[in-house]
């Protein structure tokens, strides 16, 4: 049991997908203006990421490996991810039209969110059990969500700050992201024995 907890903690904090591995920076910068939309994006990404790692595991073990066509991994994974993103998009559009509006272009862009593909490929290479893979994906998604919501909070405050014109907008966003990443370095080497 504790092994899985550690896995979650490790993927969410120590190997945070955004702040340590620097994957998925596009939505991280794009959908972090407001905490509310950041939470929506986090939920969507969490859903897609978990779903994607699960389906790609099945794909890997039931299709690619048996047929010996691992070289098609990237291609097949993208196909599956794109499909699950499409599916998520339809669900959100149906259930939360306001959120759909807010997420805008970033929702379809989850498809090309390198965090999703990256995590899927990483788990495939690690080759753990299904549960392990699922938790890995979920943990990464939690880490992504944590970083996104934290960063959205920071950006909401920056919107109220009197940032010098030279740095206003994206530059200060990147500086803040850098400092946030610095903070996450504190988790480096975290090993719960």
């Amino acid at each position, binding site marked *: 049991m504790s092994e899985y907890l550690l896995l979650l903690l490790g993927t969410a904090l120590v190997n945070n997908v955004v702040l340590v591995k620097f994957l998925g920076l596009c939505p991280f910068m794009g959908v972090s203006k407001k905490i509310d939309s950041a939470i929506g994006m986090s939920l969507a990404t969490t859903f897609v990421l978990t779903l994607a790692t699960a389906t790609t595991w099945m794909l890997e073990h039931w*299709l690619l490996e048996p047929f010996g*066509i691992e070289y098609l991994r990237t*291609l*097949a994974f993208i*196909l599956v991810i794109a499909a699950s993103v*499409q*599916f998520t998009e*339809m669900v959100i559009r*149906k259930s939360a039209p306001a959120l759909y509006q807010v997420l805008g272009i970033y929702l379809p862009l989850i498809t090309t969110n390198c965090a999703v593909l990256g995590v899927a490929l990483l788990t495939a290479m690690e080759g753990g059990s299904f549960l392990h893979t699922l938790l890995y994906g979920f943990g990464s998604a939690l880490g992504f969500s944590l970083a996104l919501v934290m960063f959205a909070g920071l950006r909401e405050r920056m919107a109220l700050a009197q940032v010098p014109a030279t740095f206003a907008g994206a530059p200060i966003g990147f500086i803040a992201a850098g400092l946030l990443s610095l903070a996450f370095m504190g988790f480096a080497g975290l090993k719960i024995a």
Partner: protein
Amino acid sequence: MIAVISLTALGVALGLGLGLAARFLRVEQDDGLASEIEAMLPGSQCGQCGFPGCGPAAAALASGNAPVTLCPPGGSALVRQLADKLGVEAVTSGMKESVPMLAVVEEELCIGCTKCFRVCPTDAIVGAPKQIHNVLREACTGCGKCVDVCPTMAVNMTPMPVTLQSWIWHKPAVAA
């Protein structure tokens, strides 16, 4: 060969799944944005926006060909509503916050020709032929149509006067 078949099968399966999902999760596309916007506009057809009337202005807004700040009678309140509706940012600071204007009839010059009251889009001018006209302060949108038609230049636009009830505190100076 296996690769081609398996990927094709995968593609077909996913495509079918998505197709089904699309059917079950369909959302009615709401049309008529323009008519919704038209309902928000004052509807006085005053033409201050440069469009022939509120309908064309609404159409232009809906298609993104007009700024949300186009309607002076609507004021900043309307700008905000439109911006919310269209999902754009309300840049009220850029819009010159024009003081609400009011038409005033100078009694010495008015000849009671009724021209002004026939063009007034809100029936804000009261009077009868051969009688001096008067402007109802609450109804006047400040569109200025009456100024253009008055033959004796008896109608003038003046800023709405500030009274004790309409006075508000100014914004504090920003801290350094």
